[in-house]
């Protein structure tokens, strides 16, 4: 594992934005029966998700979140020197959406801006990278804006039962700065590219450019699920096997390395995959109910946004101690990462719906 340790860097503010448009899974029956929908909801635990309106992109969701964060807290934009946009549903293949956001948000031209193409591990990866930048910044007042946004509703086929009920859209903005109050934080980050085929969009990149066929030819699996090569697919069984084989051990060795006992963790925030997988992780790691927070039932799997979205909805107005909050992201790549940080000093804005 790539191990990182930081001192006195933290998330000063966190703001989430979700589309108003709510999909009620039990009534998502354009292609599947009510019985099928009910069975899927019962197993996955995802009752509702948010779908961005046509014309609204991930970058828009994070833009609105960032604007609210900046305006409500009178952030001095001249101090924001770093902007990272984490997404696998960016506006264009080029230029990077982060650079466009630099302009939209009115940040200075002396701001470093770049995209990070990762999914479910993306928030922890983005956070560790932003922490590194802010720590090394020339000025003590330098701040970083970590923007994490996804419109996964558009990635998967609505006729593929394996993925049609899982994913939702959201965006989060976090402001990262230096400060003694934040204390120590730790990260560990991992990759296994051998598993590239577990969660994938085959075409539309350089390896397999789009063709008329890739955009229109329907692929039907043995269960009657339909998608094209331009849609995402997920090998659920193999992903599940990967997660249960690797994640519990990864969390345990991370805690070992940082010499923290599991019972001293204040909250566990896992990537919100599905109730079934997450319950298994909770059981395997013996996490008590009061330390496990989730919003899967209301927002589904928002990929890279899921961890900060849980922080936003479940830690707002939560006065319990969050000094040892463990974040655990895992997914597409396969890529996975853990973080341990103090969230007591993080100001969380009310959820924005747009």
């Amino acid at each position, binding site marked *: 594992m790539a191990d990182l340790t930081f001192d006195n860097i933290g998330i000063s503010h966190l703001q989430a934005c979700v589309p108003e448009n709510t999909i009620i899974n039990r009534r998502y029956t354009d292609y599947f029966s009510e019985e099928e929908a009910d*069975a899927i909801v019962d*197993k996955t635990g995802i009752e509702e998700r948010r779908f961005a309106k046509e014309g609204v992109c991930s970058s828009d969701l994070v833009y609105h979140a960032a604007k609210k964060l900046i305006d409500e807290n009178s952030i001095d934009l001249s101090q924001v020197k770093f902007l990272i946009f984490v997404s696998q549903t960016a506006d264009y293949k080029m230029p990077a959406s982060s650079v466009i956001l630099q302009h939209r948000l009115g940040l200075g031209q002396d701001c470093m801006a770049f995209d990070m193409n990762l999914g479910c591990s993306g928030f922890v990866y983005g956070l560790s990278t932003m922490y590194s930048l802010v720590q090394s910044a020339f000025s003590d007042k330098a701040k970083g804006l970590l923007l994490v946004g996804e419109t996964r509703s558009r990635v998967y086929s609505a006729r593929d039962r*394996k993925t049609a009920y899982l994913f939702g859209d959201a965006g989060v903005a976090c402001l990262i700065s230096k400060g003694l109050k934040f204390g120590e934080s730790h990260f560990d980050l991992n990759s296994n590219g051998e598993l590239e085929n577990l969660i994938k969009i085959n075409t539309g990149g350089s390896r397999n450019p789009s063709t008329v066929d890739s955009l229109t030819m329907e692929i039907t699996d043995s*269960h009657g699920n339909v998608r094209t090569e331009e849609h995402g697919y997920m090998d*659920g*069984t*193999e992903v*599940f*096997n990967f997660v*249960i*084989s690797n994640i519990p051990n990864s969390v345990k060795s991370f805690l070992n390395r940082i010499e923290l006992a599991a019972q001293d963790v204040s909250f566990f925030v896992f990537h919100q995959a599905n109730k*079934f*997988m997450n319950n*298994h992780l909770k*059981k*395997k790691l013996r996490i008590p109910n009061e330390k496990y927070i989730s919003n899967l039932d209301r927002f589904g799997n928002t990929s890279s946004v899921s961890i900060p979205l849980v922080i936003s909805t479940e830690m707002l107005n939560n006065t319990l101690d969050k000094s040892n909050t463990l974040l655990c992201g895992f997914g597409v790549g396969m890529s996975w990462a853990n973080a341990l940080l103090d969230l007591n000093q993080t100001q969380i804005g009310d959820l924005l719906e747009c």
Partner: protein
Amino acid sequence: MDKQKFIELFKETIDMEDKEIKGDVVFRELEEWDSLALLSVIAMIDDEYDIIIQGNDFKSLNTLNDIMTYINDNK
């Protein structure tokens, strides 16, 4: 391993407590069997017997007896 206990756990895992099945049942032919049942069973086996049966290995198992033998052989 306790055969009866395993069969009971299996039935509970895929929501068929009120039916009777034996060790030689071809589980893939059960009405309740689907991709979610497969994951639930893999998770149950990990929880109860501390063993993760990889997807590929599971493909070669056909009856509950096969699963129990696998668990016994790989503990």
